[in-house]
């Protein structure tokens, strides 16, 4: 690493990540202490994983991203597809999803590899002077993104897919690949979402006839638990002890934080296990943090994410080439989508969906993946003025 590289190292990106990791360790310490003894040391696990993540971070940051995009990405993409198929075949089932292979979740790795591979596709097409304007180009990119997304959906893991899709779309927009196709895809997605929301609203609104409800739901491509989640989002008070329980407890925890919070380790909704302990360390860790540090702590977290994402967007803006810019936009959008959807679902802005909070939630594969993504971003920042 020479002096120029050191100067181009994005300290905001790095510092905000470290700060988020620190917050996450504290939150996991608190959430773990509310659980059985074996979870009391989970915060150390988080720190240790972050250490591994840091090694990978610097490894990727110091490697020229061009090598990763062009040479590593096809291999990584292929491997991740194999892993996704393997998890469907041999994975272990946890909480109704077949997501685990041995000690890691292939879907998390696949998201990152796919984004890198999309950038790789663009770089190779550019190098081979293949024009990327038509519908065919869009179809190729869409297919590359859709195959892993479909495999993840099959696990099923809707949340991870939902966070991945915006990142892929942002990449295609940034790369100016098949603008019409992107527009159509976005429009289709928006229409589909509105139709689903509208249909569930119509089916579940108070006073709806049961037979009509049945008829509407039969035509929806949603599983019963997904309908419940959408319903809980639309009508939060409809079933406070059932589907709405998590959201209700989440809101109670966050609200009882007030401005300054209950104090670290003193959040009663967490300690008394009203926040289900199966999710308090993962998808609902934000509630633990918000209860114990209050609005002040929540704002700090949001500020850190804003700094991190802004730094990411800056790196994309200043990237040396389009492939790098695409990748940077994709990576930062992936982080943003996770952070935003997770926090927004905790406060009822979006329907509940299983999705971890980057750097805060306990989860080894996800944390390492997220840190690797930031390592890549850092690499784009460091190596922007070098050429191959």
């Amino acid at each position, binding site marked *: 690493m020479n002096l120029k590289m050191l100067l181009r190292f994005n300290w905001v990106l790095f510092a905000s990540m470290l700060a988020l990791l620190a917050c996450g360790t504290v939150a996991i310490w608190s959430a773990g202490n509310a659980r059985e003894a074996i979870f009391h040391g989970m915060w150390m696990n988080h720190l240790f994983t972050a250490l591994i993540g840091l090694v990978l971070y610097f490894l990727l940051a110091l490697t020229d991203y061009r090598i990763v995009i062009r040479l590593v990405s096809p291999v990584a993409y292929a491997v991740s597809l194999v892993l996704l198929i393997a998890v469907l075949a041999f994975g272990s089932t946890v909480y109704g999803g077949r997501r685990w292979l041995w000690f890691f979740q292939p879907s998390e790795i696949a998201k990152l590899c796919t984004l890198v591979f999309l950038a790789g596709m663009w770089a190779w097409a550019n190098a081979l002077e293949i024009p990327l304007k038509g519908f065919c180009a869009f179809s190729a990119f869409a297919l590359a993104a859709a195959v892993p997304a479909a495999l993840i959906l099959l696990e099923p893991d809707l949340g991870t897919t939902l966070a991945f899709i915006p990142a892929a779309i942002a990449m295609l927009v940034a790369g100016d690949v098949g603008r019409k196709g992107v527009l159509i895809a976005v429009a289709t997605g928006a229409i589909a979402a509105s139709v689903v929301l509208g249909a569930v609203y119509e089916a579940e609104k108070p006073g709806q006839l049961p037979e009509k409800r049945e008829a509407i739901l039969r035509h929806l491509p949603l599983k019963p638990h997904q309908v419940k989640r959408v319903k809980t989002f639309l009508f939060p008070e409809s079933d406070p002890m059932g589907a709405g329980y998590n959201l*209700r407890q989440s809101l109670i925890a966050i609200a009882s934080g007030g401005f300054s919070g209950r104090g670290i380790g003193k959040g009663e909704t967490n300690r*008394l296990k*009203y926040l289900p302990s199966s999710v308090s360390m993962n998808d609902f860790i934000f509630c633990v943090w918000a209860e114990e540090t*209050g609005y002040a702590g*929540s704002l700090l977290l949001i500020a850190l994410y804003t700094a991190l994402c802004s730094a990411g*967007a800056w790196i*994309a803006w200043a990237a040396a080439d389009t492939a790098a810019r695409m990748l940077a936009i994709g990576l930062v959008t992936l982080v943003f989508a996770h952070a*935003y959807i997770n926090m*927004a679902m905790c*406060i009822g802005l979006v329907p509940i969906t299983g999705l971890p909070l980057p750097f805060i939630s306990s989860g080894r594969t996800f944390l390492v993946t997220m840190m690797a993504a930031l390592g890549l971003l850092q690499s784009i920042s460091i190596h922007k003025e070098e050429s191959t």
Partner: protein
Amino acid sequence: MQQPDVSSRTGDVTCLVMAAIFLAGFAAVAIKLKDVQLDNVASITSAGEKQMLRRIRTPGERGRILASDGTVLASNRPVRLITLNPEHFQSRTQDMTATNIHNAVESAAIVVGRDSPLSMHDIERHIKRNLARPLIVWRDVTDSELARFAEHEDMLPGFECEETLVREYPEGSLASHVLGYVGRDRVDAGSGERRFNYVEFEMRGRAGLEERYDSFLRGAPGEDAVTVDARGFARKEWTVVPPQNGPDLILSLDVAMQRAAEEQLRGLKGACVALDPRNGAVLAMASSPDYNANLFVPVLTQELWQDMSNDPSKPLLNRAISGSYAPGSTFKPVTALAGMGAGFSPAAGYECTGAYRLGKMSIRCTHLWGHDPPVLDLTMALKESCNPFFCDLGMRAGTNALIMAARKAGLGARTHIDLPGEAQGIVPDDEWKRANWGEKWYPGDLAQMSIGQGMLLVTPLQMARLAGGLGTGKLATPHLKAGEKGETEPLPFPEWQLEAVRKGMKRVVKDGTGRKAGTNLAVEVAGKTGTAEVGRGATRRKNAWFIAYAPAANPTVALAIVIENGETGGATAAPKAREILKARFGELAQSGGKEGA
């Protein structure tokens, strides 16, 4: 070759748009968070508190009941309990928790040396209903059991030794009917702001003063709070409002008189009331047979309750206020007052022939062969309790005058003593007889009533009050709680009439039918005997009465005693009255030269 495409406009705009989306997204989260954490916080957190907070009503220590000299009649006794905290035995499922508790109780039973009284069903019920509260395993733990428990306490985690209070009556059955007894209160959990999730064991007065002064004795309940976790196990308990202990209730009872009265009634059926006629303070109130309320602690069992309720001698009945008896000749002073009110002179003579005849009816005199001398004035008639004299007097006064006099004397109405369950007695009239007997009022009814027989019914308390009224000229409202000012109302008869009656009543004790009531007492007693006949044929029996006030000149005690199935008032009741009065006034010193006034 690679294009120098870094400045592509689409890419620049995308970066800006994405940055804007990031900012907008996080801003939306921050704004919504402000709503949840700051603006709308109260409505959401109150729901949170509701789900994790349980409110417990805690009783204050029940006040004691003391006699006027400080003798403790009712107090509280600590009882040791061994309890267990369910949260210590929690497991993944309720069934497993119940099994854990069951096993722990079984091993504790071996240590303590007493069988476990809890079935699996009890434990499961506790888990369902009172999970956040300790489960009581053993009540009334003995010293040796406690010692074994304390020795092995560290082997029994989750168990605790606690103390609770139960009622105790240190004097046993003394004044049992006055004191009453307590039972377990089914306190309403309340509603709205004052809703409690749990109610701790609390005593409630079920009879007597315990019932009448229940809220006074209880003090004010306090409130404990306990936070529970999502599964309902207790986490932290603290006191929100400490309970206020109930104050002591001090009575006007004179323990010496009370003991004497109970001693005199022992083994008999009957009742006795003594009160201070100047202010109505009750000095003694006894009813026999009585009961020992300690047997009802900590709980009155169903069997005992059945036994006591079905007992034909009615031990739970406070005959002194709830027993309705024909007053017999103790009513004659009222007849005398009615007669004088109708113009009869106390000095006028009446010749008793041994019976009073009215149509086919004949009312005999106790002096079957007439009196000596045969012509009686009022004083002599009272002294000898001449039935024909008073029948004649009552007939002259007339039904209305007699009824009016009885009512003025406080009969036929409650005295409003501070005890529940007071009977009001019956002063019959034409209307009452038609309603209850379906017959009109005959002259014979008047004759019967004139000598305190027939349909007339009174309580011993009413008669004690009347006796005091005759002595002082004032009817006092009786009360048991000391320190009451004492309400009196005038006994509405002219003083000369009362004086004439008093003269007769003094003679009753001096050398008349009630002379056994005054034998060798330190004070002069005025009184009246009564022998009321009740029932007919085989069930015919006599209730022996004596009413009195003393000292005769300036009464400080008024008394009424009735003995069921006695001989006569003079033979049965009067000597007992003497013993009770002795406890208050003492005897004449045998060797001393001091004469009774």
